[in-house]
């Protein structure tokens, strides 16, 4: 294309460029659509194969590795055993182990925004999403059973009840950084309340209560129910107040 002088020439060139861009965008869009479609097929096929040919895949170690790599690349969870009669009755087979690994996986993945405390129902929902099944096929009893198989790995991973809700805690007290945040908060007044903690960190109710109760159990906190507003206060005598120096005088 030869460049022609004048305003008409410039406008012409601009129009051509626009057209090229439009075609380019179109192609890109179509390409993405096609790929999405192919990716969906790819995934569903891999999922089906993982379920159907599990033992065959495991037998051939070279192919097993290739299969895993495929699954990992397109985002398919290769763990997809059906529950089966044996698992149901005796708790043997891979089903509960697989479930256990997936449960911990979800707990780790969601830890950054729930602090290692997840509602059992939400866990089940995410689990079903991962396994591509509906919520009915995976009971909370299955989850509890899978979690109980993890008991030998130490007591950090457990199911606790807060009110009516069942929560799964995946961070052991020894590694829980939530407590540091609460102690820092307590430096202002020497005490905190559940509401205050929830508001300041925008945590869910269960998370704040669990953290405070653990601190109480650890002997770091004391409770005061006698205040006029009726809200339980958690006092932290071990925390040095940021503005107050009288406590230190008495100590020395």
């Amino acid at each position, binding site marked *: 294309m030869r460049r022609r002088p004048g305003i008409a020439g410039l406008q012409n060139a601009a129009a051509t460029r626009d057209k090229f861009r439009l*075609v380019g965008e179109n*192609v890109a869009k179509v*390409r*993405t659509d*096609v790929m*999405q479609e*192919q990716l969906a*097929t*790819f995934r569903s096929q891999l999922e089906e*194969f993982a379920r159907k*040919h599990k033992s065959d895949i*495991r037998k*051939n*170690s*070279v192919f*097993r*590795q290739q*299969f*895993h*790599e*495929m*699954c*990992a*690349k*397109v*985002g398919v969870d*290769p763990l997809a055993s059906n529950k089966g009669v044996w698992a149901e009755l005796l708790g043997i087979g891979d089903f509960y*182990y*697989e479930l*256990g*690994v997936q449960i*911990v*996986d979800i707990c*780790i*993945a969601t830890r950054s925004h729930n602090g290692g405390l997840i509602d059992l129902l939400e866990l089940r929902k995410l689990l079903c999403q991962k396994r591509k099944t509906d919520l009915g096929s995976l009971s909370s009893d299955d989850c509890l059973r899978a979690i109980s198989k*993890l008991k*030998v*790995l*130490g007591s*950090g*991973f457990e199911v606790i009840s807060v009110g009516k809700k069942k929560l799964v805690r*995946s961070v*052991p*007290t*020894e*590694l*829980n*950084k939530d*407590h*540091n945040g609460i*102690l820092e908060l307590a430096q202002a007044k020497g005490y905190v309340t559940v509401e205050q903690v929830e508001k300041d960190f925008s945590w869910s109710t269960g998370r704040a209560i669990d953290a405070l109760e*653990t*601190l109480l159990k650890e*002997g*770091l906190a004391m409770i005061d129910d006698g205040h006029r507003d009726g809200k339980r206060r958690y006092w932290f*005598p*071990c925390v*040095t107040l940021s503005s107050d120096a009288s406590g230190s005088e008495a*100590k*020395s």
Partner: protein
Amino acid sequence: MSVGAADWLPAATVMASGRPVLSAGEIERHLLPLVDLEPEENPRLAPLRGCLLVLTSHRLVFLHEASLSARALPLASIIHTYPPHRRHNHSPLRSLFSSSSSSSSSHHPRIRIQISLPLSRSEVVAVVVTCKADVDVFYGRLLEVIRTRAWEATASAAPASGAPVAEGAAPAEEDLAIRMPVVGVAGILRKEQETWESAGQNLQDAFQDLNALMSKAKEMMELAEKMRQKLLTNSSAQSNSNDEEMGSKQDLQDLLLSVGIVSPVTKETAGALYHQQLSRQLADFVRVPVERAGGMMALVDVYCLFNRARGTELISPEDLLQACSLWEKFDVPVMLRKFDSGVKVIQTKTHSDDEVFARISSLAQKPDALLKGISPSDAAFTLGIAPALAKEHLLNAENKGLLCRDVSPDGFRFYINLFNEIDLQNIHLPKTHGLYHTWISVATAAH
């Protein structure tokens, strides 16, 4: 008897944990403890003794565990293998030259292998299995691996791997170049379309049955990689990407951590060595994630990560625990730690008690701490760890005699232990140097 003597075989690299380093695409197939390698005809070649034999898809690795050194026999150099037999009476020459130790091993099953070494002609060596293992199973695997010739596949794939993204499209492009030169916008569009059409066709063919998928596995892996790259770049470039796309991107990123151990130790390949080898593999694997987590990680998290890296070859929690407990016997940089609360964690040895104690005692010697002591929360803030763990560390330090505790209604406070400083000979003489002196000067200054 060291492996180093057998310099007629190429050396193989070994991890600090005592696991052989495998090349890309190499997969472990079978392990045998306590194997000798004896040259049968050439007395100048030094034998290998008491090695762990690792049969991979590419090599026979003879690993001397005590010295952490290894020699490898590439399977490509094997010309012929003879079935295992228990008595050797085929070589009268050998019995003349052989040393005394080989006579004791004569009743052990041996597998003779004819190999071609780079510098000499062909040699005959014998793999002598001195442990009670099923030699026939090993021989079966060896034949199978040699028949598969996996080393050729990786050798041919290696040069092409420079452009992994374009690989899947390559065949289609070649076809196209012959049929129709790519000219202009229309040409580009057509090329684009045909690329994707062929990919779709490939996809359909591959997933007809398991055998089809196996034979097309390489292509499918490339296609998967291509899709992944495209999807990741696309959704990061387009800000207006829809929910579905974001969802699938999320899926991809979730599972990125699952690509890991190419050749997981299994009961099938390792046999009696299962827990020991698992333990070594775990030590290699766990070091990086634990360091990234700040030197300490709950055992449950490790269980999840390790199993994810192994794909479908899950191990049970009991196996994991046993693998961890075997670490005491090896020199590995990680250790299992059990808290009084029953919580089990894996920590790096650099994150060990000694280092923590050093930091605690320096914290307790600050002027402020000499006066008021330190509480678990103080230690938690300074050490950047959870209060419960800080308290645990403080109590441990007290057990060691580094700290003294003061129990009050306010909870525990810990002070540096000055009793160590007091000289039994003259108790009443204040010192003019050292910790005791610092403490006195700080205490008097405060009043």
